[in-house]
Structures are given as C-alpha cells and as structure tokens.
C-alpha cells in the first residue's frame, strides 16, 4: 500500500509539475568581427554610428565638434551629408547638428533623445517629457501627451511627427520602463496611435522606429515580463497611416539601424561579449555584418555620464550597527530552499526526494515560516539544503535544478 501510494504521488507530481514548468531556450548570440575600417564600411552601408566613442561613417566634409570632457555621443541620425546626435553630458544634454556647412551644439534642459531629420531638413528630438522641432521657421517645444512620460524616438511622417512615449512611473513600477506607445503630433495636437498591453509585470517597449521608403514606419517591439529570468521577445512592426501590425518575429535582441541604398533593412545586433554593436543587413541568406557601431541604440562601451557618481560620499554611520567592524564573525552559510508548501507533510515528501538526490550526503531540513522568518512566509513550509560556508549557492542551485527539474522554478538560494 505504501509503495503504491508513493508511485501514485510521484507520477501525479511529476505530471503536474512537468506541465506547469518549462525552460526557455537561450537567445542566439552574435559573434562576428567588425570590418577593419569601420568608418569606410559604415559609409558604404549608408549609416553613421558611434563606435569607440567616435562618430564614424559620416561624410568626411561633415564638421564634427570635439566632445567635451565626460560627454558621450549617442543616437545618430543622418540626412544626406548631415548628422545629428545626442551629446550626452553630466546633467542636461546637448543636440549636435553637423553638416558640411558647419556644426551647431544646442544645449538642452534635460535628457535628450534620438534626433531625427525630415526630408526638408527639419530636425526633431525628445527632451524628457517634451518634443522639440527645429526647422527653417524656428524652433518650438511641445509638451508630450503624458505628463512625466518620456518622449523619445520621433520620426517625421510628412508634416507630422510620430514619437514613442514611455509612461511615467507608477507605485507598482517605480522606475524603469513598463509601457510605451506611439503618438502622432499633427499641428499642435497629439493623437494616440497604439495601446500595447502592459501592466505591473508584463511590459511592452517600442524601439528604433525608421521611416521606410514606402512611407511606413518600421520599428521593433519588445515584450517581456519583469519577473521572468529570460530575455523578452523581439518583433518587427509597421505603422502605416493610423494602424500598426506585426511584420515578423525576430530571433533575438536586435534593433533597426535604417535602410541600405537598395532598401534592405539594417540592424544593430549586440555582441555583448565584446560590448560592440554590429551593423548587419538583411540578405537572402540571413544577416550579414556590414559595419559596426551604435546607430539609434545606446553604446555599450561607454558609461552614461549621469551614472558615474560612484565616488560620491556615503551617508554617516548610525549607532544601530551593533557589530564592530573588526569582528570577523562566523562564516555565513547559504542554503537551497525548495518551496513553498502548504503543509509539513507535503514538504516532508519533497525532502525525501532531495535527500535521495544527494544520496544522504547533505543535511536536509524542513522548516516552517514564522513571524520572524526571513526565508519562508508564515504558515508555509519549505525544504532547506544546508550548504558549506565556502559557496554562495549559485552552482549548487543549478545542479539541483538539473537533478530535480520538476522543482527547478521553486528553488532559491537563501540564508537561513
């Protein structure tokens, strides 16, 4: 009777957990080398980009002002012989307009984003929650449609401007991105174009819109969940008129970088091993590297000047710190926790499986969460495998997940 019950329980648990659990595949990682002369290669591809802190691929005659100390160039847009880019500074940024006739540095009053050119030579960019449009008729600043929401990645579509707007933080998502949508600026009025799904966990981001030769706007949509430990999904979308639709899924992280002279799409693909943005173009045989550097994406090989304050002083100590700094204490031990279980008997059964997995070589306990517990919530139970003080538990976590895959999503490193 006992044996038959154990088999039933095991089959039941494995079946249910096997259905409920699952492991994603790793995204493909690009590993190509940049061309020997990136400037020439980018120029041949028809794009300008930031590579190793320098603007490469622009026409030789285009004036380029030197970067101030602690400033970083990013987000380059070209128009014939001209280039516009963000001069990312400590504090408020600047927009640089470089043409064969000279260059102008336009200080901004906040974080600047993604300058873009119209076919008539006007330029638009985002500054915090505002859009700036500069043309022969002058310069105007238009408040964004959502107070506190960042206006970025604008694109001219005829006389109108389409811009992405990132929703302001909420109490549930107090920082970082959670909801982007496209808005159309026609005259002085904003019109919302998209309503992508987003919430406290599921999020949608719009990245790198470009005007295609047919007048549509193509862009990358990234969708993920904040709590998932895998890369989100990437897909190519198209905006035509007032409607959007998905063109195709993408096989990993990449962003649009514009179009080649023959209309082929150009992509920025991260090679994270070398902190390099590759520029690749669509070919019938897949993507082919034609250059390197960050076009509308953010360079990986430089630090945002606004996030370099690591030398700043720390706040004063408080008397609440009770242990003298010279006290070495006892070595801290991590543990693996499998849980949470609604009852002790359920945890006991899993503890038996865990003990068997280690062939009895590791101490395995069942613990109940109490009022002061820092590893299990009250009235829940968990299995704890105590580890030697010499490890942080990361390798042991992966090993136990591989041994007991049905429980893999319910295992954590804790400090009991």
């Amino acid at each position, binding site marked *: 009777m006992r044996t038959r019950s154990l088999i039933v329980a095991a089959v*039941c648990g494995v079946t*249910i957990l096997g259905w409920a659990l699952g492991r994603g595949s790793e995204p493909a990682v690009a590993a190509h080398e940049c061309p020997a002369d990136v400037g020439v290669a980018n120029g041949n591809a028809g794009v300008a980009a930031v590579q190793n802190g320098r603007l490469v691929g622009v026409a030789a005659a285009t004036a380029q002002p030197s970067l101030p100390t602690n400033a970083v160039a990013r987000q380059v847009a070209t128009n014939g012989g001209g280039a516009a880019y963000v001069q990312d500074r400590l504090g408020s940024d600047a927009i640089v307009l470089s043409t064969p006739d000279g260059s102008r540095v336009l200080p901004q009053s906040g974080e600047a984003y993604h300058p873009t050119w119209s076919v008539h030579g006007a330029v638009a960019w985002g500054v915090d929650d505002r859009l700036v449009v500069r043309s022969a008729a002058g310069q105007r600043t238009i408040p964004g449609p959502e107070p506190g929401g960042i206006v970025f990645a604008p694109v001219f579509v005829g006389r109108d401007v389409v811009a992405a707007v990132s929703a302001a933080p909420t109490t549930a998502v107090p920082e970082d991105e959670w909801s982007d949508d496209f808005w159309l600026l026609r005259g002085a009025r904003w019109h919302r174009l998209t309503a992508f799904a987003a919430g406290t966990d599921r999020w949608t981001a719009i990245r790198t819109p470009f005007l295609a030769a047919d007048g549509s706007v193509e862009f990358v949509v990234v969708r993920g*969940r904040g709590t998932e430990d895998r890369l989100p999904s990437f897909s190519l979308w198209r905006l035509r008129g007032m409607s959007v639709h998905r063109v195709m899924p993408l096989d990993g992280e990449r962003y649009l970088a514009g179009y080649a002279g023959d209309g082929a799409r150009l992509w920025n693909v991260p090679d994270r091993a070398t902190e390099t943005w590759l520029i690749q173009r669509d070919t019938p045989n897949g993507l082919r590297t034609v250059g390197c550097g960050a076009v509308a994406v953010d360079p990986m090989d430089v630090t*945002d000047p606004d996030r370099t304050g690591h030398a700043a002083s720390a706040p004063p100590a408080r008397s*609440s710190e009770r242990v003298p700094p010279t006290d070495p204490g006892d070595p801290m031990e991590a543990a693996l926790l499998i849980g949470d279980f609604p009852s002790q008997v359920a945890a006991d059964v899993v503890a038996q499986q865990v003990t068997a997995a280690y062939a009895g070589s590791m101490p395995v306990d069942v613990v109940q*969460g109490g009022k002061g517990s820092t590893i299990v919530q009250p009235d829940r139970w968990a299995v704890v495998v105590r580890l030697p003080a010499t490890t942080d538990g990361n390798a042991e976590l992966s090993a136990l997940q591989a041994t007991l895959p049905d429980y893999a999503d319910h295992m954590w490193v804790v400090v009991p």
Partner: protein
Amino acid sequence: MRILRTRGRSVRAGALVVAAICASAIAHAAGLASASPIDIWVHDHSSDVIKPRPDGLSEIQSTFGPVCGDNANGARSYWPSQDSNGPGYVYYDPYIGKNVGGNIRGHVRFDHKDDAVRWLVGGYNCRYISGTTEWSLHAWGAAIDTNSATNPVGQDHWNGTGSDGKKYGTYLPDVWAGPYPGHKFFWGLNWPNKPDPMHFQYATGY
C-alpha cells in the same frame, strides 16, 4: 526559466500545491519527520560575502552573467511591507545572496527595524532603462529598491518614514550603502543629475 508574481506563477504554485496534495496522500504512510527551523543570525562581512563590486558593463556581465539570465532571480528573502499588501519576497542574483539575505536582511530584523521598511521593495526585474536600449541593473538581479513609494526617482533626499509612520532617518541607506559595516551597495541618491533615493545597486559605472 522562473516566473514569479504572475498568473503563470499562480498556475505553477497551484501545480505545486496539487503535487503536494498528491504527495501528502502517502505522507502518513511514509511516516516522515521534520526538523525545526534554526533561528540564528550569522553576521559576516568577510570577502566571501561582501564580494568584489563590478564597475562598468563588462564587469557586470562577467559577474552576473547575461541580462535577464537564468537564475538572475535565484536568491530570495522575505521582507516586511514588500508591497502595499504587506510582506513578501524580494528576489536577486545569488552573487549578492548572502549579503542581502544574510547581512542586510539580518541587520534590519535583528535591529528590530522591520517597520523602517516601507513598500515597495523590489529586486530582480527584467526591464529597460526608459527610452534606451540599456538594461536596468535590476535585470541582472544586482539592484534593490526600497521604500520606493516615498522615495521616487528624481527626489533629492531620503524620506525615512517607515511603514508605521515613524521616522527612521537614514537607517536603511546606512545599512545598504553606509561605510560601516559596509555592505557596499551604491546608493542611487548619489547620482548627480537624476537622484534615485530608492535605488541601491551592487555595481558602479552603470
């Protein structure tokens, strides 16, 4: 892949409960016993726990692995006032597991300062920095936000009001980022242009 705090997690949690019920059907026959929890806080500021803090994207990636990577949320601890509904789990990379789950959480608990913590408290979060193609350090499980509702991005000071309405001064920033005993987190309030008082990260230069 691990999914937390989602409908999917609820399904998975439900599956675990059902599995546990299946298991409990034979538990009495198995005649299993359980151990009592051990309730001792070990305080450790050695280099095995306060590990090297990466500087710059390259070191961040070599230390924490791929962004939104497997088990970047593989360590956890249970925090008071984690969200507006009360206590809950906070997840982060195991590289900082002992420092956060042992030292810092231990300090707060054994200093009897649980009430200094006020929602939202959050760790791992696979997201971009708004408007950029740069990933938040939360996407490596290398940053923790605490008392975020009262310490929003852009606020140039720390609001130490706890969940009980009392003022705790800079107790929490001291524990996370203070020089003594030195848990070595960098405090986002110290970013010069856009202070982020809720934010504590185990990295610099990013």
